[in-house]
């Protein structure tokens, strides 16, 4: 079973993980004065607010309910008064507004009454999945896919292997690493709970081999429960991508267009598993997460456990502020993270890290022409031809870009990382994918309007027919009565 571990391509970026190594998670952050809880911190539809301006809320209280199945609940992360429901600068590179519930905290940090479960293993998996859903848990590795949806989907498949993704491959980030080191028991417990819910045959916690401490802690924690395997996988970016991790752990590939469920595998991030454990054992909804605050511009890099909705500024303050002005301010890791438009934006469920990088660390240069060196082809973990994809995207020839693999691209950035010409390959792909999505939407809209028009035409026709029929009936009636009259006369 340990014979696999190979993925294609990939890169070995400098990890910079030593910045936060050996520093335990900072837990007691000063309570922020204001918390911004965006309604959309997950993939899918934004949640619907349940509170109004002026309402008092308690810590852990449900303040926005999932809208439909592809959505997630939002809970107040501290007690206080709702002071606004409206647009804030979204934690998104575009800097566009997003709707959020703003809570003025009262400093009491008073919890709602929680409902812990004493023995979750004796409970019905569907009930447990519903509890996970109620807790508003999403994929904490950055994918922000609603966890309950994934669990429910998993239950419809025969899951051979549950993989707990502890191969935090992004440079700088150590939040999962520290979670695994400091809360190994809870992670193992969470893994067992998820296994119970989806009835998997086998549980593997996969840890990259550059995290020996986490591996040791997990092995120790897993020892009493025979069924949880802790496994090392080679340190290589993007090992943390589900497709690559599955390949490394099971040796199998997910067929194009299918999901990991289809090959009997389910992957959950350690952060997600931990949140699920907290929700099931203690009834705690998802209101905080561990965030790595690091980068050359951070005075004393740390992992901090931050309440969701905390402005990023507070996190930096907790790490003694910035030194110098950062070249890039990022949410997430440097490979797939996104630029933060402002420091007022809040910590959200998928925020794995907050990085303030120096120019040297970013190592950005003006793009030069492509010299077709093929390094991107060698680096691509999906076996695509990034240089051709970018060239065709650049001239809006999306058909050819797709032919060279745009659809299969996971936007991991390995190609752009190695490009000696510093071409922003990922941005080309983002652009092309965005354009294609827009086109698809406009096509769908057109189909929709066509349907509406034909429905309207049918309705008008029907109405006209009904009118005509009514008219005819009236006439007939009139004639009848007239003939009766004449007969009578």
């Amino acid at each position, binding site marked *: 079973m340990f014979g696999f571990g190979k993925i294609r391509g990939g890169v070995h970026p400098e990890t910079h993980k030593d910045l936060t190594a050996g520093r335990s998670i900072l837990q007691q952050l000063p309570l922020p004065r204001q918390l911004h809880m965006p309604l959309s911190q997950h993939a899918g539809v934004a949640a619907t607010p349940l509170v109004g301006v002026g309402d008092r809320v308690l810590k852990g209280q449900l303040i926005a309910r999932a809208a439909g199945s592809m959505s997630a609940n939002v809970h107040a992360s501290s007690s206080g008064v709702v002071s606004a429901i409206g647009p804030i600068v979204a934690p998104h590179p575009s800097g566009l507004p997003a709707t959020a519930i703003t809570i003025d905290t009262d400093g009491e940090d008073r919890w709602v009454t929680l409902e812990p479960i004493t023995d979750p293993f004796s409970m019905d998996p569907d009930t447990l999945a519903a509890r996970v859903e109620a807790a508003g848990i999403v994929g904490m590795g950055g994918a922000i896919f609603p966890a309950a949806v994934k669990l429910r989907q998993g239950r419809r498949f025969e899951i051979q292997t549950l993989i707990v993704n502890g191969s935090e491959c992004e440079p700088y980030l150590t939040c999962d690493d520290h979670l695994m080191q400091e809360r190994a028991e809870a992670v193992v417990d969470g893994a067992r709970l998820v296994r119970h819910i989806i009835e998997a045959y086998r549980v593997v916690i996969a840890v990259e081999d550059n995290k020996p401490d986490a591996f040791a802690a997990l092995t120790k924690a897993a020892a009493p429960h025979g069924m949880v395997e802790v496994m090392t996988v080679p340190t290589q970016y993007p090992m943390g991508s589900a497709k690559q991790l599955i390949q490394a752990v099971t040796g199998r590939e997910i067929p194009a267009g*299918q999901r990991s469920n289809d090959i009997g595998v389910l992957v959950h991030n350690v952060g997600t598993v931990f949140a699920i454990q907290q929700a099931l054992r203690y009834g705690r909804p998802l209101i905080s997460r561990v965030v790595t605050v690091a980068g050359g511009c951070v005075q004393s890099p740390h992992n901090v456990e931050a309440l969701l909705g905390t402005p990023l500024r507070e996190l930096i303050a907790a790490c003694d502020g910035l030194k110098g002005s950062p070249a890039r301010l990022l949410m997430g890791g440097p490979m797939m993270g996104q630029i933060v*438009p402002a420091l007022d934006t809040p910590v959200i469920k998928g925020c794995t890290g907050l990085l303030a990088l120096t120019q040297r660390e*970013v190592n950005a240069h003006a793009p030069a022409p492509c010299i077709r*060196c093929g390094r991107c082809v060698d680096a691509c973990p999906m*076996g695509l*031809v990034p240089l051709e994809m970018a060239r065709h995207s650049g001239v809006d020839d999306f058909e050819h870009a797709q032919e060279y693999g745009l659809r299969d691209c996971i936007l991991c950035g390995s190609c752009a990382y190695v490009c000696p*010409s510093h071409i922003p390959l990922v*941005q080309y792909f*983002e652009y092309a994918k965005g354009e294609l999505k827009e086109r698809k939407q406009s096509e769908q809209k057109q189909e929709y309007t066509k349907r509406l028009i034909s429905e309207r035409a049918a309705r008008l026709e029907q109405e006209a027919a009904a009118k005509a029929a009514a008219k005819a009936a009236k006439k007939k009636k009139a004639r009848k009565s007239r003939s009766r009259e004449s007969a009578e006369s």
Partner: protein
Amino acid sequence: MNTPSELALRASPHAHDRSRVDRIMLQVCLALTPATLYGLYLFGWPALFTFITVCLSAVLTEALCLWLQGHSLNRLRDASALLTGWLLAMSMPPWTPWWLAVSAGFFAMAIGKHLYGGLGQNIFNPAMLARVALLISFPVQMTTWVQVAPLGTEQAPGLLHSLAIFLGTDTIPDGYTGATLLGAAKAAANGGSPVSELVAGQYSLGQAFVGNTRGSLGETSELLVLLGGLWLLRARIISWHIPLAMLATLLVLAAVFHSIDDSVYLGPWFHLTSGGVMLGAFFIATDYVTSPSTVAGKLVFGAGCGLVMFLIRSWGGFPEAVGFAVLFMNALTPLIDRTLRPRVYGRDRRGKAIHNVSARKVN
């Protein structure tokens, strides 16, 4: 920082390895240096004049083209023009007169590269294109190979005499010129005399490898070129696929035909150590821009180079064939790139999703 400026809107990744185009080009130049220095030592002052002129002509032409197109001259910093000029100089006769050297650099840069839009866009290797064009246009000058006359020895012409030769005001002394070994073999084969005798008389593997033979700078010391190439491999500037496929194909073909009839076909080692094969395999064929970018493509490309080279050397009219072979495969490169792509994750070679019986529970 609160306003998302144009500069701030950069997509991921926000990290990059230390590679840069100019660094790659300079590393290749560095790999060429030992062989170049040795070659310059062997052929003396006229060779140095030629070398400098070709490089200078290439760089100046690049500057001119950039200026004409309104591009920033900063682009000269990527050193690609220098590298092209360098490779071109290494594949020309060492005592090429000045006008030929100037036109070579000009042709390579203007027609071979900037006509197609500059760096990364050309379809033929500029250095080889210039060499082949000049070979066809000026067959006499381009096949004037002087004998080895190391600097400081009696045969070596003095500085002034060299300058005169280079400027064409003085002719190359009689008896200095002759054919390269490959050329001699070709002539022998055409004349109907067995090449095996010629080879036995004039060729020794060691000599050819170390490089005390007539030929271009890149043709003389195959050993130093090979070492430079191996260093590039080690530095991961080039991959092994093209050189290995090319050399192996040539070796196998030569071995097979040589064993069939050694009076007509040259031996495998002779092939490998003459006519700048090493330069071609490690430095010319591996040019990023004009060779395929996928592994399978590189193997086919390399094998194709070896095959065409052997065809031309054995049955064609030209004695050495690296240039033609590489250019021919350059022409095929777009087709190779289109057809030979890596297998995509989750798909088979034809791009269909790999077969899988879904693990969905039935009920």
